[in-house]
């Protein structure tokens, strides 16, 4: 896990500019910031990998692929005569 403090440099309608101590500039959607912060506030961001979501997405995506394969590769619709 990574944890870091950032200063909110600018807070626009939907976008904030965050600054790290070593002058990284990050454009960040305000929707991801906690309520009540304003320009000048400092926020702490913690970030870790979400293996569970990864697996869920994997399964979901595979099911899509299976559906496509079964729909179009076995149960072929009428072959179009023309390609334009």
């Amino acid at each position, binding site marked *: 896990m990574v944890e870091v403090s950032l200063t909110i440099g600018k807070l*626009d*309608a*939907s*976008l904030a*500019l965050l600054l790290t101590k070593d002058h990284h*500039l990050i*454009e960040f959607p*305000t*929707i991801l910031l906690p309520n009540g912060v304003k320009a000048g506030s400092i926020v702490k961001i913690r970030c870790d990998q979400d293996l569970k979501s990864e697996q869920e997405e994997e399964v*979901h*995506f595979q099911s*899509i*692929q299976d*559906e*496509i*394969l079964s*729909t*179009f*590769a076995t149960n*072929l*619709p*009428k*072959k*179009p*005569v*023309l*390609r*334009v």
Partner: protein
Amino acid sequence: MLPPSIASIPEAREDYPGSSLVERTARLLTIPDLGPGDLCNIHKYQLNSKKETEIGTFLYFTGVDTSNVASIAAHLQSLANLMTSKSQYWFGDKKHWKVPELSYCSYNAFSKVDMRVTVHIPGKLDVVVVNYDGKLIQDKLSSEELDRFWLETFVCGIVRAVLESDDDPDTNKVGGGLVEVRKINPFNNGIVSKELLNNFLQGFEELFFQGYKLGCTVDFPQPTLINNYLVDGFMKVIELTQTYDQALEILERLQKEEPSVISLIAQVLLLKQDEVEAVKVMNEGITQNKRDVNLLILQTEYVLEKKKPELALELAKQAVKSSPSDFKAWSILVKCYIRLGDFENALLTLNSCPMNSHREKYQLKRIVPLKNGSEDLHLPSPTDVTLDEVSNLQSNEISYEQRNLDAQLTNLPATNLKSTYAKAYDLLTDIVVKTGWEALLKYRAKVFVMEEEYRKDIRGSVSSANNGTTKEPLNGAENLTVAETTETVNEEDNSSTMAIKSPQKENFDDSTTVDIDAVTTEAVSFEDEFKRKRLCERWLDNLFMLLYEDLRVYTMWQAESLHFQAQQMEYKKTTLEWEILGSIAYRLKHFKEGSIAFSNALSGRFSPQSQREIMRYYVMERSKLLTKSSSGASNIHNYTKLMNQLNEKILDSIIKLLVWNHRWYSDFSPGLLLSLSDLVAWEGSIKIQSSVRALYSESTGVTSSDKDHIGNHGIIDMMDDL
């Protein structure tokens, strides 16, 4: 292959003999991507005068076999023969030339060198290789290196020939554009072409891993092994020559080294109409690498075409996740949302599309400027193939129309959109044609922060007057590549979100005008809702303005036209004006109205653009008809009749455009060839051949029998050959 005549060679006078080569050398450093067409420099003097009176001319070529010195030398020799065989009119005087020296330059974009062959008649043959900084490096090369350079040069040349678009605007021919160029079909010369094709395919395989050096289209942020002009050229050649199986063999070998080649295999299978196999290959590839963006996009397009937008959406999302800086991935995601009728997400994703203004569509460009403009151009009219209305179109007719153009129609900014901006606009019009303008504004107000809300929010903050709602780019500046007129709009950017009123029937029926202020104040403005909204990118805000302009002109035209109809008066416009109206209608996806405009345009005079656009309409109509018939809805007798009519009109368009291109020294039009071969697949070559004879035999009063011969027979030759 139609034998070239002295009248099929345009020329430009150069400053002094050889100066075009000097100019070209000076510009080598700045050549981007694929580079310019091959340059041919010709020294000539009159039969009975002294060598001191020698002058120089030049022209560009595409489609010449540049795989080795001998083939280039032969090309130069035959050109010299043609020029010296008889006298010709030269800027008003009859002249009989002697040609003592010719040079041919072909740019090798892989190694960034210019390969040059000079033939002295009679006499020796020189070969030089010019480095990007103008140094001659042929002496430093081993013979293997030189062979490699020639292979690269040849492959580049074919890629340029097939990718160079044959749908330039008119102005290119009769305005100030590049016209001193002769385009040759490399693929319709029987056994020679077959060999050339094989050489190209072999060259492709050998150079595949260098392909990214040639650059790529605006769809991608950078060229990759899969997305580049070499691959694009290869696919175009495969399609033109229908050598699918050979292509598959090559790609399968390459796939062993580079797994991502699998998306090209799937593409070829689709071209070959082997859908089941294509679906399997796509599935297999994605299973191996679910982040292969090219495969994902291909699969999305396929599934969309099969009318499964829900499935397509999942694929498009995955494509964006896999390559978030590809315009193409985002644009197909937008398309999925549009198809699903989810216009809010369509706008949000459109707003996220990564724009790319520093690259343009590939096209041939002048590399040697004309010192005295068109006065330096020798532009003979080929007489072997003509069709009165097409071949005799005069530039003064067009420039008259341009000078007297309706001010409403000049400089409509959407006309000049380029690169990804043009594509984004296309997506925006896809939305508006489904929602209408008023609803579009409502959706916009719902997902983007509007000016008024924003002002409310910042009031009171220190020195924050005049912050726009459009997003300021963080780093580097943004720059729409649209014409000057757009900048006018740009400067008013800050107020644009408010400034747009409904263009609908503005001048005709005020009562239906919806007040936008009413719409925007509807928007709920409590903090959370506000945070959820996005800032509209500056370019997208600008596109809304352009859309408004287009809609305004379109709506006025339609209303006026109705008015004139009601009064039974003739609604008069010039061909150019009709053409502009047609283009607006097409941009707004009102194809039927557009086709009427183009047809009106063509009733005034021939115009290649209108002809191309109306042909597009016929092709769309044909596929609509087909869909209807396959769903069993229509009467078969009527169907055949309609189908025949459409095919006839398409054929007529193809022939006229081929004649037009031929008049301007181009005997290679990949797009038209594909349309023709499509038609042949429909009707059979014999039926087409007889239609052509029926429509354009001598009895119609034009000397077109020769033309039928190539317009039609040449293609059959080509297809027999390959």
